[in-house]
């Protein structure tokens, strides 16, 4: 027991130290753990950590399965599917070629290719979580790309679990895995509600349920000789019944943090001083992952009709190596099927690319401007900017974005009979606008090309309800006398906008506060104010929801 305690102490103290640094520089946590592992590698006993590390894998994949939403698959755009397939094929071929070139055997080449092709959803999704929340296109694109890749990764893990790669073996394994997932979906749909009811909201019971499914499915997959990844994934899917999955997520989340930390640190521990061979492979992986892969992605997205900026912003969240590659690598290492240099190369390259990808995300706008300046990113066969505007439009109102807020404003604009046009860059919304016969410009707000179509110099008013300073800045920098109504999240921002020429700035928090005060006074002064308030507000929300569907 004492030795494990020493190891754990080293693990957590080293992690804490590295996290101090990574947090300071807004870096993701995973490289910090890997580095921590490297630091303590001389002082810990590898073999006893491997068992705990495996548990870490189980929990990581379990949580992944838990967060996995099958409905999101159906909502996946065909574009992201196309982009993904293209990218996988291209990057895959390239990496496999490189691997063969430097003398790797086919199986090793396969591992190399896997590492280079798949991106990390753990790190990647964290990088774009804000964009996804704000419903930006490139956020949604990146999210769906990650989703597809993760699914493929799980399938590949199953494939690799086969002892021999005969068709029979692989087919059987895939079949077993598929039936496990099907039963998991079955449990999720029909049993979880009943179980959650029995649990009567006890987090302990829900945690135990989660654990039971986890250990149960893992035991089943081990019985059939499959990797624990399959079992963990199936278990996660099985218990992911909303809203109970939130409770399970809360409790299992801490447990996962504990074991996942041990897992990543152990990987770092397993890294020893890389040989020349390893260094070559590392370099190759890094190059492909941080340069070739994103480049190919940008090109294919532009092909699909997205504007260059959106394409670039999507790619910057996908330029790292996936944790699935790490999981596959360590399982291969335990089974003895991966060469040591390659194993080290994957860990090293993962550490580096996860770190660099957060920097590319941080400086993505600057990078894009630089690339744009040197015309490296070409607009090529792009569909945008495009427009459908009445001839001779003037004194019009320009509205940014046809989201729910936009729709409400359009309602009002129709009521007062004003002339207006909408600038929007989401292809789905554009097709809606087209159907409704409205004036629009299909383009990215931050591009000057787009504005040429909108004719701001002739406009009466520009309205933006987007909470992004870049958008507001672009509008303020336009050469026009038109009025400007913008949105800001902070008071100092709002004041800054007004000083620079905005006529009015909406600060939602202030508005909310004023409304609350109004209602507070109402509560005091009138009888039944609450019921009235509730009724009115509920109706308004329902109206908004209906307008969204319609």
């Amino acid at each position: 027991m004492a030795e494990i305690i020493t190891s754990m102490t080293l693990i957590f103290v080293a992690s804490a130290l590295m996290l101090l640094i990574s947090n300071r520089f807004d870096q993701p946590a995973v490289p910090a753990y890997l580095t921590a592992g490297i630091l303590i590698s001389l002082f810990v006993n590898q073999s006893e950590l491997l068992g705990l590390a495996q548990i870490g894998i189980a929990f990581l994949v379990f949580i992944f399965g838990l967060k996995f939403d099958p409905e999101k698959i159906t909502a996946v755009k065909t574009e992201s599917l196309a982009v993904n397939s293209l990218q996988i094929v291209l990057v895959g071929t390239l990496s496999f070629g490189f691997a063969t070139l430097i003398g790797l055997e086919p199986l090793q080449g396969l591992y190399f290719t896997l590492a280079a092709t798949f991106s990390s959803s753990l790190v990647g999704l964290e990088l774009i979580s804000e964009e996804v929340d704000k419903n930006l296109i490139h956020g949604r694109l990146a999210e769906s790309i990650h989703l597809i890749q993760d699914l493929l990764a799980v399938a590949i893990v199953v494939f690799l679990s086969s002892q021999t790669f005969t068709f029979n073996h692989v087919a059987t394994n895939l079949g077993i895995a598929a039936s496990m997932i099907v039963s998991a979906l079955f449990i999720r749909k029909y049993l979880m509600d009943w179980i959650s009811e029995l649990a009567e909201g006890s987090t302990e019971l829900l945690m135990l349920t989660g654990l039971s499914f986890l250990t149960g499915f893992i035991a089943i997959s081990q019985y059939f000789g499959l990797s624990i990844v399959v079992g963990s994934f199936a278990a996660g899917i099985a218990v992911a019944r909303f809203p109970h999955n939130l409770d399970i997520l809360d409790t299992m989340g801490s447990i996962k943090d504990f074991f996942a930390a041990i897992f990543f640190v152990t990987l770092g521990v397993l890294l020893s001083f890389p040989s020349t061979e390893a260094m070559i492979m590392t370099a190759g992986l890094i190059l492909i992952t941080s340069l070739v892969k994103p480049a190919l992605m940008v090109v294919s997205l532009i092909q699909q009709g997205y504007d260059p900026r959106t394409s670039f912003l999507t790619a910057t969240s996908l330029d790292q190596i996936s944790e699935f590659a790490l999981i596959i690598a360590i399982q291969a290492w335990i089974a003895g099927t991966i060469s040591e240099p390659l194993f080290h190369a994957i860990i090293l390259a993962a550490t580096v690319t996860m770190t660099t990808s957060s920097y590319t995300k941080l400086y993505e706008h600057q990078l894009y401007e630089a690339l744009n300046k040197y015309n490296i990113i070409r607009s090529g066969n792009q569909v945008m900017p495009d427009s459908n505007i009445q001839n001779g439009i003037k004194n019009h109102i320009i509205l940014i974005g046809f989201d729910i807020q936009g729709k409400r404003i359009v309602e009002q604009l129709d009521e007062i009979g004003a002339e207006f046009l909408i600038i929007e860059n989401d292809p789905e919304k554009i097709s809606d606008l087209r159907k409704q016969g409205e004036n629009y410009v299909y383009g990215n707000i931050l591009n000057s090309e787009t504005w040429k179509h909108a004719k701001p110099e002739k406009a009466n008013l520009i309205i933006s309800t987007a909470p992004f300073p870049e958008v507001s800045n672009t509008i303020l920098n336009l050469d026009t006398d038109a009025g400007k109504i913008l949105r800001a999240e902070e008071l100092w921002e709002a004041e800054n906008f007004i000083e620079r020429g905005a006529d009015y700035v909406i600060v939602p928090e202030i508005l909310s506060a004023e409304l609350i005060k109004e209602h507070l006074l109402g509560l005091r002064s009138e009888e039944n104010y609450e019921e009235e308030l509730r009724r009115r507000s509920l109706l308004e929300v329902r109206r908004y929801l209906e307008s969204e569907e319609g």
Partner: protein
Amino acid sequence: MSTGFESLAIIIVLATALSFVARKTKQPTVIAYIAAGLILGPVGLSLIGQTELTQLFSELGLVFLLFFIGLEINISEIQEVLKPTAIIGIFQMALTALLGFATGTILGFTTVESFFIGAATMFSSTALVVKLLTDMDEASTLPGRLDVGVLLVQDIVVVLLLALLTANFSDPATAVIRFLEIMAMIALIGGISIASSNYLLPRLFKRISQKPSIFFIYGLAWAFILISGADYLGLSLEIGAFFGGLSLAQLPYSSELQERVRPLTDLFMAVFFINFALQILPGQLSAYFFEALIASVVLIAGKFGIFFGLIDRMKFTPETSFKASLNMTQISEFSIILGALAVREGIIGDQMLGFISLVAITTMGVSSYLLNFNHAIYSRFDHLVNRFDAEEKEDVDVEQLEGHALIIGYNMVTERVLDLLEQQYEDVVVVDRNSENAEKLSRSPYEYIYGDFKHGEIRNASGIKNAAFILSIVRDMKVNHHILRDRERETPVFLEAGSFEQAAELYDRGAEYVMMENIVTADKVADYLELYVEDPEVFREEIQDDLETIHWGGRSG
């Protein structure tokens, strides 16, 4: 690892199934864990033995438990019960030891055996009591704090006993020296933990308390540092973990950390109880079966009496004395550990260990039941209990809030509304979990609670049932659900949602008003649009007020 997972799976699945049964029959899950172990182990089907993994988890269980307990002890909070618990703890142990000794002698055991029984049974189960209290969100009630305090005193004595048992008995001088050494070590580690709690930790943790997972790792790192330190000094790991938790408990963010540690502790403790039951041999149980049952009854009744008498003497109300005593009627799992050690040292025989184990299981089972129903049992007997009441008896207790305005989450919105709320409701309680606001809020005239509203303890402390108005700017749907569930129906609730679907759901569940940034924004624009287009002059007049607010708000904010 392959066999490891299969046995683990069977253990956990059975434990889970039994836990569900336990819940239906209103038993605590601890019983289910023990039952699972009994069924699968030598006593039952003999399917599974202890594995390396279960051993490891089991030992981690006690370590994490003590860490968890340490985290609970905010010194300022227990100061008021510190003196009474120390006195109660010491006297209780002495009296119970006597009771144990007497019972042993009467039942026919030898002097040495009876002495051992006395020593082993004087402790109550930290694992069980703390777990059940926290499950019921009663750990910070007065009886709860008394119990936790007494358990702590006991834990310190346990550590001393453990150390003593492994000390060299042949030479009394060495034994005494060793004892003093241990005391010194404990003082040392205690000192380090208190010192760092005041100087080092606040600085270290302030910056990273924002990110829960990182914060968690930090907490673990600190705990392990002290655990290793304790190990190095020759103390038990649990003492290190305890002081680790203790030093962190003084920080305001400790409740967050506690919640993160809790699932891990639950997991390890579950394995602990299962593991414990897995190692019991049937022979051990049957040897002194009837003696064990008799001893259990005597101990339960006796412990209750001893506790009640002592707490009552400390001038607490009869209700507090009753409930606090009812919770402590079992013997501790440490009795088994002590027993195992004693067997190893040749002080007692194997069958004695079985006897103690059976007493442990029985008393734990019965007392869990009693603990779970302490309120109901109290109401049954309250007329009897209140005979003990007297003028000077009073509970040192927290102020009860009533008719206050409850704010959950502190941001620009709530900041602007606080003045008006204070005017209308006199008392304002702010619950916020952002450490950056801590300083500002503690200095404000409002009642401030640092913590996450998702946690039952925080909700209890906020007095949500007695609030006259509730406002929450936390968009987390879980928090919103808790609020709508816990509040009284007449209390108006204003919430905030991130999407229209969420808002609709909250209205369906009874919220009076749900703020949505996007609705508010769009409505405002729509309002001003007509004005702007038709009458620009009037528009400019209308927005003057808003512009003023931005200007002045921007200056001062």
